[in-house]
């Protein structure tokens, strides 16, 4: 299982953040009732839950209504173009990260995408590269760090930005630093562009979110655990090494015991002494 080991912190900012985080964790020692693995990856749960509540309130009051209005007012094809344009800009940084992760083939194909979409796709408004069968990837610096062996680290919920971790939060800063929108645009344009991108991102989540609302018993931990899986999956490009293969062994064993133990599975007794039930015959 993904045991959370503390990453070796190199940069001073990360260290400061870590100190802050640990301080916050010890300050809010009242740990809420938690699942087995949840707590080990989420030592800051009380703090994180507070930020999560804040984000949720902000989302309900501002972000979601804005995204819904955007979805309602702006026609499909325009929204597609907006998404494509941001996607095209994003492909540049994706390509850089592909290189950093030692995947020159992917880096080349991502740059090829940018070239095609910027020219034949009218400045990136149309994603003609995808239609031509050149797959889109998304890589960020957090994934690059993951690829380099940095573990995700403890869970962090960032104000406004949502789920992150001790590895991914600083990495997000690097993403922002390298963002072509920040680098290329003037101050005013940049803010507008960031705002529009945020709305566009939020709108894309509208569908997925209703599934989360319905599926979760506890929305907070559901999002947290899904996020860890999602990131791990991204780090390994959709093909992470299996993590819980061994965890099915207990069930196989239990089933063997119970089929040995009698016709009726889990009759009182069969399930009670699982360690010794192996030899019990009806």
């Amino acid at each position: 299982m993904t045991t959370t080991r503390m990453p070796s912190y190199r940069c001073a900012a990360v260290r400061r953040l870590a100190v802050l985080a640990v301080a916050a964790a010890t300050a809010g020692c009242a740990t809420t009732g938690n699942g087995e693995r949840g707590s080990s990856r989420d030592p800051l749960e009380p703090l994180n839950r507070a930020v999560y509540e804040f984000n949720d309130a902000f989302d309900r009051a501002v972000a979601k209504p804005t995204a819904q209005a955007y979805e309602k007012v702006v026609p499909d094809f325009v929204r597609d173009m907006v998404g494509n344009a941001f996607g095209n800009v994003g492909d540049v940084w994706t390509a850089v990260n592909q290189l950093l992760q030692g995947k020159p083939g992917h880096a080349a194909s991502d740059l090829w995408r940018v070239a095609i979409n910027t020219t034949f796709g009218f400045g990136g408004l149309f994603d003609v590269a995808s239609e031509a069968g050149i797959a889109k990837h998304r890589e960020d610096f957090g994934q690059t760090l993951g690829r380099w062996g940095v573990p995700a680290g403890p869970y962090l919920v960032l104000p406004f930005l949502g789920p992150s971790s001790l590895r991914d939060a600083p990495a997000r800063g690097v993403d922002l630093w390298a963002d072509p929108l920040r680098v290329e645009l003037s101050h005013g344009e940049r803010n507008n562009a960031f705002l529009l991108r945020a709305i566009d991102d939020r709108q894309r989540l509208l569908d997925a979110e209703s599934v989360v609302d319905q599926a979760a018993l506890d929305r907070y931990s559901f999002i947290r655990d899904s996020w860890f899986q999602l990131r791990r999956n991204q780090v390994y490009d959709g093909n992470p090494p299996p993590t819980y293969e061994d965890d099915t062994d207990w069930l196989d064993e239990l089933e063997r015991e119970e089929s040995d133990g009698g016709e009726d599975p889990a009759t009182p007794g069969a399930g009670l002494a699982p360690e010794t039930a192996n030899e019990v015959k009806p």
Partner: protein
Amino acid sequence: MNPCSARSALTHPVGAAPLGRLARTAFALLAAWALLFAAPARAAEAPNEMIERLSHEVLERINSDPALKAGDPRKIDELVDGIVMPHVDFRRMTALAVGRGWRDATPEQRQQLMDLFRTLLIRTYSGALSQVGDQKVRMKPFRAAPGDTDVIVRSEVLQPGREPAQLDYRMRKTGDDWKIYDVNVLGIWLVETYRTQFAQETAAGGVEGLIRSLQEKNRQLAAGDGKVS
């Protein structure tokens, strides 16, 4: 040729009266041959072939039935019970999601957990049916050793203008059949995700507590749209 038509040919040989004994024997032989070969051929269907067939079947069903797409609960039950469930080891799925608590659960509690979990999943995903449209499922290369009994089948859902969506299945061979016991949507495994959810409840209130909160959750979902906002 499928075994059913072969069997009916055996019991009702077409135009049996004018046919001689030889012809009838030939029929019987043919039918027996069909039974012999058709049955194992179906049973030996590779897990990835099964998923491919099942994916197309389900997509086709949803797209050809507006009521199903709109979320008609009766139609969904039909789809789930008729097409999907025969290929799912739902008991295993529930057991793995419940985790350690499964050991201590009585047979009645286990059945209850399976029913409640099933309802929760159906309620959750029935809303997503309306989003099914011109998607296509593409199978990814499948690798497995001949003796494997536990495999992962990978596929992706293609939709114009979107990134492909990852959709993987974990399957186990029981007897001759392959059955699904975990699903991965966009990198998130269903069982793993629910395991922490359920562990949280069992830690707080035991198996009974988990059952109660599932009942409560399902009641909420039945009453409204899940979340009280």
